[in-house]
């Protein structure tokens, strides 16, 4: 009986060691994060275009969603080559809504969410550039751009 217990314990130890080795041998999975893009304007925003860059050129885009306003297209316009490239240096996003000004959101609005995968120890260094923002009547308007990143589970 005691001999069986010993052999069972040994088997379990071997299995645990194999499992640990297997986990260590897996390639680096990386971490997933979201980059939420916000546009703040005194007038409701009906059209916008931004450029997102990662200064080290190590941004892997895995998905793109529209923001909080459901009248905008989902996802925004973007070059689908970024999903094929794997790692990209920059990404251009743009979208518009044909809703009336009264239906559009004003103030600070989340216009897009970019899902990225990060690898390595260095923290991503993002940079946003506002290309164009327009009101419901097509007029270019002033706006401020900001972003928030959040790690995904």
């Amino acid at each position: 009986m005691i001999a069986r217990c010993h052999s069972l314990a040994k088997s379990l130890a071997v299995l645990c060691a194999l499992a640990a080795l297997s986990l260590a041998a897996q390639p680096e999975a990386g971490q997933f994060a979201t980059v939420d893009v916000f546009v703040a304007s005194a007038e409701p925003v009906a059209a916008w275009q931004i450029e997102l860059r990662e200064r080290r050129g190590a941004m892997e885009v895995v998905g793109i969603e529209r923001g909080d306003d459901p009248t905008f297209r989902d996802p925004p316009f973007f070059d689908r080559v970024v999903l094929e490239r794997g790692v990209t240096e920059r990404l251009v996003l743009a979208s518009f809504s044909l809703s009336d000004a009264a239906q559009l959101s004003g103030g600070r609005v989340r216009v897009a969410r970019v899902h990225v995968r990060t690898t390595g120890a260095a923290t991503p260094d993002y940079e946003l550039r506002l290309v164009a923002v327009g009101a419901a009547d097509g007029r270019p308007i002033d706006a401020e751009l900001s972003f928030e990143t959040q790690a995904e589970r």
Partner: protein
Amino acid sequence: MDDRDQELETLPPALVSRLKASDRAQPIVDPRTDRAVLDAARAYFEQRPAAVALRRRRFAMPLGAAAAVLLAVLVVRSFGPEPAVLARDDVDGSGRVDILDAFALARAARDDASGATAARIEELGYRVVALDTPRTRSLP
């Protein structure tokens, strides 16, 4: 008296006097003359290439700049977007092509003010975010 004087005595006096005059008139070029001519020639030809080089330098910069401009124009015309295409895409007349042009096209289509199709609007929308085109596409 040597043999030469004896030969002269046998010749007619007129010929002898002409031969002696010819001997005296023969120009003598000594090494100093050679050196002077050489120095003058060197001085002349040393100045000439310098002047030519100066003229070349004077025209090198404007010629190089003109060649660079010409090359840039040729490259842009060969590989850049056609100005006619840019002008057609600049729907709002802002002088550059961005999402506001696709938006203007979509609003015009909504209001039946243009014959723009949904495909044309989509195509323009995707073109303004294309990564292989310049970041800001402006009209020339």
